[in-house]
Each structure stands twice: as structure tokens, then as C-alpha cells.
């Protein structure tokens, strides 16, 4: 099985290896998802078929690429699954567990082939053995009720099969030679072949490269049906193939325990749906290529903005056509940009899908009953974000299971259902993606956190509000778990979650009620590449304030501004006093309006705090492409990156949270000097 490339010297099969690994991983994920969802008492035949197909595809691919070890496990799995879907073997919870383990083993083998990860032979043997045990069990079970079975491998009697083979029209394009196929079939026993031309167009419309024939074969063989199907493997989908046993013996079929009749009805339709349409519906493109397009479109947007700016000064009557053209261009570029950005968007289910398994295993380990609810799985967000969201969410879910959800007895005592619920909910709110991790567990315990914080030498007191107490759990090394388990409690976690989410430009908020549960909310930007911003002018400089940080903007009256201590200024707004940050002072920009009344004030929300930024004027609202300053320079305090404006100049994008802390630092310095 290893010398595949040698057998087919004209095709470099290794270049398809990557595709196989990806597909295999997808099949495994699909299999796992289905197995977790299945109800052992009343399995949906459709789902059983889907699981079988996934195993079958992995086996096929593994065979082609010479990963014989993978085909061994998948083969055993497939055999058992086949019995189950044939109704010969009742599905039980332990069997589902075994299937999941088999999937794990296959994943391990896959990792071994792909990354050279270590493979535990024992685990493979154990799973294969268990699967074989199931098979043997059925054979023994089935035996008395159906027919006397000889010991050892049963010598099946010769049977006659009628095989209807209608190949896909493009079969020749795939380099398949039908005569070889028939030779191979003839190797199994006596074969008669009858071909017929079906549905061929008139000669002028005939494409000689397509196949318009179908064949009726009759094969008399001792081989089981599965072996016949194996010959057609990779040549025909189940839909192309109709195998019927002509003189079906009353005795139970041999080895694989194939039962031809139920199989035919069930298989073809879903196979078709899963296989071909999907292949036509999507193409795999490297993320690098998509990013390149996004960058190029970003450049186009900048060029378009530049043209619009140049065009704006031209007489609208004399250059009416040009203006129309520019407007059209602006619309088209915006549409193009949206389409291109959407290419990077993937559903959050890519992350969510890992949790059913995680929760199931973890709950079993912890001896808790936990139900996982996933809401809003179709919410789309940037691929880069999805990948980076996996770790923080895993932390949060583990925490919820380990710390928040109580053991069943404690839950019942508290008047709650024995099974706890953890909900993952994703939604898009404005320009943000909000992901909530909710549980109905014990809730955060104020006293415990305060005590722990005091032990760790954090400055705390009873006067802290609940919200402030909850924030303490984000301190590095903070854990209130009484014992360190291998699940969580080592105190790495919440601070990592906070850091990861902040690195993505997001925020974390906590709401908790003792005895009722906890909700942790992550809010993230929709994409990493583009931002809706408000351009503001300060002196000769321009800055971009992210729209989602802006609460409102206003032109202050003289009486609205008060001073505190002579230097610090606050804006009085609807009974609230908000600190005022003059951007010109923060960034030392000359030529800007000194007095707040001469400028414009922008009220922004910074992690729940409201502050007021003083600028000279609002310029306009625009979508800006975020450019990295770090690529060639370094992080600039107070900025979340830079962008290129319509006139080709660079403008900094303000990070409101950072500006607030920057200003506080400056104020403190000033106070220290005074």
C-alpha cells in the first residue's frame, strides 16, 4: 500500500495528500458530530448512513494515498456500522462511545501521517479488537436465528448477482478504463456483460469524450457483495450502481453480513447529495490568495476615494458624466469590497462544533450532567477571528463545567434540575460579533473571590461593586477552584482569555448572580481588516475614531465644561460628569482649537467608561482599511493601527481604551509634578 506513487508514475499523488488530509479531517468532524447527536434508542437511518459514508470516504482516501493503517481501523468501523444500519445490530451507548474512540484513533493516525505525530499502537489495537468483538458477537448472535453457520470463515455458496452499472458521463475524463474493471470482475467468477447505449444525443451534438453507455452485468461468484462494490470503489457512486442478488439464498450472507435489499433503498439519494453537488458548489482556495484579493481591493478603495476627492472640486455641470462615472465607481468598489470581505467570513459553527464532544467527555470525567446548547451557529465572522476564538472559548466552557455547574446532588438540593445547562450563543449586533457563554451553575462567589484576591495581595475591600469584584478573576494566576484538577484550576485561564480577546480588538464582560449562573460575554469586531470609522481633524492632523466606540458627538456650550482642580476638565452631560481628553494636548499637536467650546466633543465608550474626546472638527464617516504600523515600525500608544486616507496620507486609528489610560497616566504625571 505504500508504493502508490510507483504504481501510477504519471500522477504525483502526494500533491493531493493535503486535500486528503483536509477532507479526512472534515469527514471525521462530521462523523463525530453525527455520533454525538445520535439517539442510540432510535437512530435515524439517514444519520447512520451519513456516518457510514464518512467512514467509507476515509477508508477510500486512505487506501488511495497508501495509508494502509487507516484503512484497517476504518474497515472494522465500517463493517460494524454496516450491521447497525442494516438493523442487524442494535445501537447502544457503549457502541457510540466505541465509535467515537475509533474516530479518535483515526484522527491520531491522520495526525501521524500529516505531522509525524506519535501514534499509539495499543490504542489502535484496542479499538480494532473491540470493533471485531462486536462483529463476532453479531455473527454468533445471528447464527442460531437464521441459519447454521460453519466454524471459522464461512464458505459462502456461489450466488448470482445482477449489476446495473450506469457510469457518470465524465468517467473517461477521470482516466478510468472500463475494460479493466470488467477483467477484475471476471476474476471473481463467471461474468456476462451486456452493454447498451442510453440517452446518447444525435451525432452532431455528441461529445465523444463522454460516456453514454450503461452496462448490465451478471456475475456468478462466491464473493460477498461488498467485494463487488469494492471493485467499483472510486469508479462509481452508489447511485451509478445497482447490485441485486438474483437467486438470493435464504441463508444469511457471509463474512461482512451484507444484506443487499435494505441497502439499495437507503444509500443512493444521500450519496448523491453529499458527493457531487458539494463538489460543484465550492472550491478550495488558499487563505493567502483571498487575503491578497482583500489587500488589492483595499488599494482599489483608496484609489477610488482619491479619485472621488479629486473629482469633487470639478464643476458638477461641466463634468456631469465624470461625476456620474465616479459615483458608479464608488458603488461598484463598495460592492466588490463587501463581496470580497464576505469570502473570509465563515460560520462560527466551525468553533462551536468542537464543544459537544468536549462537554460530553468533560462532564463524564467530572461526574456532572451537562447539557450544551448552541445558539446562532450560523453567525459569520472573519476566519482569522474564528481560529483565535477557539482557545478562549474552550477555557470558558471548561471553566463553566468545572467551576460553575454543580454536581447533580447539589443541584437537586438547590432546587435545580440535575443536569446543568451551558449555552454558547453567537449573534451579530451592529458591527460586532457577540458570543455569550452562559451557565446555570452556582454563579461567582463574591466572598471567595475577595478572599482569594486578598491572599494574592491584590488591593481589595468590601466597598468594591460586584462588577469590580468579577473583574478580579481576570488577574493573572487567579483561581478560586479549591483543588487543582487537570480540567482547570491552575489559574491560567481568565487572564489568557482576556488577553486573547483584547488582542483581537474585543472586550470581555461578566454578569453573574449567585445561585443562578454566570454569563460571560465576548464582543469582537466583525473583521480584522476593515473598520467603520469617523475621521476627525485636530490641527492639521486627521484621526479615525472607530464608530462602534462612539456614543454621540456635540458642540459644547461654555457652561457645559467645568474644571476640576484647575486643570482637569469634565463635561457635564445630562447630570453626568465625563472626563474630557483634548486630543491636541495628548498628541502635542499645534494649531488646534484650545478651548473645548471652539471644537467638537465626541463622547466615546471605553470598556464601559465614558470619556469625551475634544477634536477640532468631524470630517466624515468612512470605511477604512486597517493597516499595520508594526509591520515596518512599532506599536504606537493610543492607536489601533493606521489607515490610508483618500488623499494618500496616513491617519492613525484611535484605540479609545488606550487613549483613556494614556491620558490618565499623563494626568498622574502632571499631578506628581505639581
Amino acid at each position, binding site marked *: 500500500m505504500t508504493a502508490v506513487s510507483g504504481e501510477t508514475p504519471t500522477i504525483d499523488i502526494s500533491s493531493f495528500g493535503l486535500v486528503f488530509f483536509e477532507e479526512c479531517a472534515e469527514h471525521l468532524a462530521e462523523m463525530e458530530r453525527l455520533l454525538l447527536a445520535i439517539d442510540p434508542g432510535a437512530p435515524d437511518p439517514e444519520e447512520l448512513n451519513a456516518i457510514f459514508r464518512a467512514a467509507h470516504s476515509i477508508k477510500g482516501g486512505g487506501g488511495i494515498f497508501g495509508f494502509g493503517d487507516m484503512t484497517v481501523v476504518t474497515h472494522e468501523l465500517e463493517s460494524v456500522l454496516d450491521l447497525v444500519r442494516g438493523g442487524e445490530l442494535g445501537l447502544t451507548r457503549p457502541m457510540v462511545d466505541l465509535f467515537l474512540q475509533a474516530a479518535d484513533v483515526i484522527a491520531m493516525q491522520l495526525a501521524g501521517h500529516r505531522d509525524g505525530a506519535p501514534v499509539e499502537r495499543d490504542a489502535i489495537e484496542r479499538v480494532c479488537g473491540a470493533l471485531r468483538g462486536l462483529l463476532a458477537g453479531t455473527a454468533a448472535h445471528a447464527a442460531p436465528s437464521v441459519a447454521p453457520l460453519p466454524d471459522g470463515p464461512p464458505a459462502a455458496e456461489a450466488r448470482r448477482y445482477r449489476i446495473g452499472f450506469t457510469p457518470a458521463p465524465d468517467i473517461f475524463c477521470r482516466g478510468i478504463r472500463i475494460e479493466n474493471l470488467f477483467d477484475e470482475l471476471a476474476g471473481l467468477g463467471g461474468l456476462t456483460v451486456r452493454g447498451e447505449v442510453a440517452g446518447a444525443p444525435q451525432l452532431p451534438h455528441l461529445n465523444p469524450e463522454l460516456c453514454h453507455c450503461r452496462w448490465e452485468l451478471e456475475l456468478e461468484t462466491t464473493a460477498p457483495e461488498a467485494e463487488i462494490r469494492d471493485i467499483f470503489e472510486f469508479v462509481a457512486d452508489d447511485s451509478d450502481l445497482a447490485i441485486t442478488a438474483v437467486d438470493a439464498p435464504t441463508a444469511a450472507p457471509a463474512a461482512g453480513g451484507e444484506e443487499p435489499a435494505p441497502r439499495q433503498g437507503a444509500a443512493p439519494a444521500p450519496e448523491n447529495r453529499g458527493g457531487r453537488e458539494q463538489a460543484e458548489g465550492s472550491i478550495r482556495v488558499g487563505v493567502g490568495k483571498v487575503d491578497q484579493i482583500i489587500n488589492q481591493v483595499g488599494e482599489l478603495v483608496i484609489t477610488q476615494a482619491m479619485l472621488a476627492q479629486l473629482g469633487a472640486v470639478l464643476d458638477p455641470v461641466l463634468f456631469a458624466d465624470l461625476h456620474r462615472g465616479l459615483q458608479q465607481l464608488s458603488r461598484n468598489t463598495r460592492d466588490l469590497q463587501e463581496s470580497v470581505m464576505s469570502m473570509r467570513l465563515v460560520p462560527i459553527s466551525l468553533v462551536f462544533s468542537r464543544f459537544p464532544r468536549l462537554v460530553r467527555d468533560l462532564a463524564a470525567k467530572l461526574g456532572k450532567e451537562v447539557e450544551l446548547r448552541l445558539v446562532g451557529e450560523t453567525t459569520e465572522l472573519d476566519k482569522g477571528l474564528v481560529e483565535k476564538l477557539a482557545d478562549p472559548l474552550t477555557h470558558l466552557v471548561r471553566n463553566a463545567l468545572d467551576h460553575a455547574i454543580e454536581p447533580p446532588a447539589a443541584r437537586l438540593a438547590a432546587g435545580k434540575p440535575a443536569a446543568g445547562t451551558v449555552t454558547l450563543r453567537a449573534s451579530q449586533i451592529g458591527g460586532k460579533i457577540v458570543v455569550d457563554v452562559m451557565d446555570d451553575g452556582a454563579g461567582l462567589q463574591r466572598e471567595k473571590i475577595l478572599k482569594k484576591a486578598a491572599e494574592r495581595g491584590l488591593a481589595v475591600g468590601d466597598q468594591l461593586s460586584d462588577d469590580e469584584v468579577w473583574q478580579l478573576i481576570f488577574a493573572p494566576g487567579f483561581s478560586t477552584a479549591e483543588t487543582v484538577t487537570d480540567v482547570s484550576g491552575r489559574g491560567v485561564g481568565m487572564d489568557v482569555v482576556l488577553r486573547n480577546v483584547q488582542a483581537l480588538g474585543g472586550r470581555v464582560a461578566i454578569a453573574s448572580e449567585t445561585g443562578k449562573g454566570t454569563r460571560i460575554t465576548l464582543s469582537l469586531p466583525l473583521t480584522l481588516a476593515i473598520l467603520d470609522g469617523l475621521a476627525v481633524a485636530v490641527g492639521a492632523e486627521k484621526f479615525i475614531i472607530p464608530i462602534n466606540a462612539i456614543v454621540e458627538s456635540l458642540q459644547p456650550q461654555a457652561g457645559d465644561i467645568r474644571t476640576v482642580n484647575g486643570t482637569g476638565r469634565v463635561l457635564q452631560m445630562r447630570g453626568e460628569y465625563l472626563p474630557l481628553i483634548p486630543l491636541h494636548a495628548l*498628541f502635542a499637536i499645534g494649531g488646534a482649537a484650545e478651548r473645548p467650546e471652539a471644537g467638537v466633543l465626541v463622547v466615546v465608550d471605553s470598556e464601559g467608561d465614558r470619556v469625551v474626546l475634544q477634536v477640532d472638527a468631524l470630517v466624515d464617516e468612512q470605511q477604512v482599511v486597517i*493597516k499595520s504600523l508594526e509591520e515596518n515600525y512599532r506599536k504606537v500608544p493610543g492607536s489601533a493601527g*493606521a489607515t490610508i486616507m483618500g488623499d494618500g496620507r*496616513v491617519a*492613525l486609528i484611535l484605540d479609545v481604551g488606550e487613549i483613556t489610560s494614556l491620558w490618565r497616566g499623563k494626568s498622574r504625571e502632571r499631578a506628581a509634578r505639581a
Partner: protein
Amino acid sequence: MEQGTVTAASGTREYLTFTLGSEEYGMDILKVQEIRGYDAVTRIANTPDFIKGVINLRGVIVPIVDMRIKFSVGTVEYGPFTVVIIINVLGRVVGMVVDGVSDVAALAPEQIRPAPELSSSLDTRYLAGLATVEERMLILVDIEALMGSAEMQLVDLAA
């Protein structure tokens, strides 16, 4: 004027020479990406005065350093003839403002003398040596070491 097409025999290397005030400097020409005018620089607050800010170089954001301010030589004026050498060092693109770009000099290793210890605003660590070209002294700068140094404040050293 010497032509810059000398073949690279016996370790001869080409240097782009530029002037800062009355002094003439040279740097490895392979590090030079392009030479352009000084235009549309966006200031960055709270940076040393020799970091003039950033520019948009065909969609890439590039910091601009004024070497005249950094080395305290020459007169600091910005006009249509101010020259920016865009260099490629340490995987980064950086622009440096100089008084003028004069020439390309091919120098064999034996033409280069080690720089003596001296007190100047340019640390000798960043000097590759001194060379004489047509009676003029050329100060060869190790541009990579200079731009990557902490004192230029161009790189996040924490990162």
C-alpha cells in the same frame, strides 16, 4: 564620477553614498529599495524628534527617520529637493531623510579602514569603517545594526 557598474571581483562591494551636512556617508547598496522625495508625512505623537512620522508607500506604512536630526548635522529643511532613501533592513521598510544622494562607490575590502574610537553622535558600533574615494573620506554605516538599535526606537524591543 565613477560608474556604479563595477563587477563584484575579489569581494568588492557597492555602496550608495549620501551627504549629511558636509560629511559623506556610504551604505550597502543592496539594502536600498528606492529613492524618493519627502512628502505627506503623518506625524506620530510622543516620539523622538528624528522620527518624522509615517508615510504611505504604495499602501504600505513606512516610518521616516531624519538622519540629519539624528546625527545633528546639516540644516534641517524640508522642500522639493529633500531626499528620502527607502531601505530594506531586518525585514522592514524604513525611509531615511538625508541632504542628498551623490554616488555609487565600489570598494574592495582593503580600501576600508576600521573606524577609530571617537566621540560622536554616531556610536562606532554602527560604523562599518572609513574609506577614501577620490580624496574624500567616506563614512560607511552598518545600516542594519543602526536601524535595529534601541536608540533609533524603530522596533518594539519587547516584541
